[in-house]
């Protein structure tokens, strides 16, 4: 009985933390005014926000019904895929020149996103052709 009470409070706590972080992530998305800084809010705050919500779901399932660990999988896939979508959005920003131009790499010629073959240069956006 005591465990159920503890679990209810733990679930409530996780739900509040998750909801708060998700809210802050969305606020950040609205507040920042540059495409690249905007990327930071959902990629990080989102992972803990959703992580806490899933933890709440997991505790609830463990105590009040037969425990299910599906949520662990959701969390694992989320942590593996979030950086990839962030990376793609960042690449689009660099490619379209909607952020300040990155400094050139110290060793190699250029960043792979800007590594456009000679024949396709004409198709590139203006801002970026300078690089």
């Amino acid at each position, binding site marked *: 009985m005591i465990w159920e009470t503890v679990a209810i409070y733990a679930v409530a706590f996780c739900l509040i933390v998750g909801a708060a972080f998700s809210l802050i992530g969305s606020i950040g998305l609205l507040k920042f005014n540059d495409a690249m800084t905007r990327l930071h809010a959902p990629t990080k705050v989102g992972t803990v926000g959703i992580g806490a919500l899933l933890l709440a779901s997991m505790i609830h399932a463990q105590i009040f019904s037969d425990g299910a660990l*599906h949520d662990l999988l959701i969390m694992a896939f989320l942590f593996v895929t979030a950086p990839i979508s962030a*990376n793609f959005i*960042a*690449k689009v920003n*660099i490619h379209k020149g909607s952020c300040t131009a*990155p400094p050139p790499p*110290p*060793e190699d010629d250029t960043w792979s996103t800007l590594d456009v073959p000679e024949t396709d240069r004409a198709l590139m956006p203006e801002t970026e052709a300078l690089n």
Partner: protein
Amino acid sequence: MKRAFYWLLPHPFLTLLLTVVWLLLQGTVSPGMVVFGLILGILIPWGTAAWWPGTPSGLRLSRMAVYIVIVLWDIMVANVQVAWIVLTKPNARLRPAWVVVPLELRQPEAITVLAGTITLTPGTVSADLSDEGHSLLVHALHTDDPDAVRDDIKQRYERRLLEIFT
């Protein structure tokens, strides 16, 4: 014997991982499910081996466990930090910066792990890799000293990854 092993199991860790994922999806551990999971874990890496020829060799699992714990802790800290920046820093005082990290890691798997870690941890997103793969472009949300961010990444994550992927 060793060749037969690698022919059957091109990625032994992937086999193990797929089996565990299958069991988690099922939600129950019964002998039948373990066997079916193992069959999937053997067939899928075997079928996709052509697109993933190299096997990361010499993974040090104990060091990897330490690394995962450090990264999970950093993710928690990073979230609080970024939440604080979102709520309290006005846009005008925000100083985003590009950080270039020269890489000592050479294996694609190791660089992928490093890039993923950077994206999930304190105020940084890995944006791009240079055309030959010798440096990583990282965007920092708010920093006064980009060099310190670079040194921190190299010290905290890359050094450990170099030890994991020998």
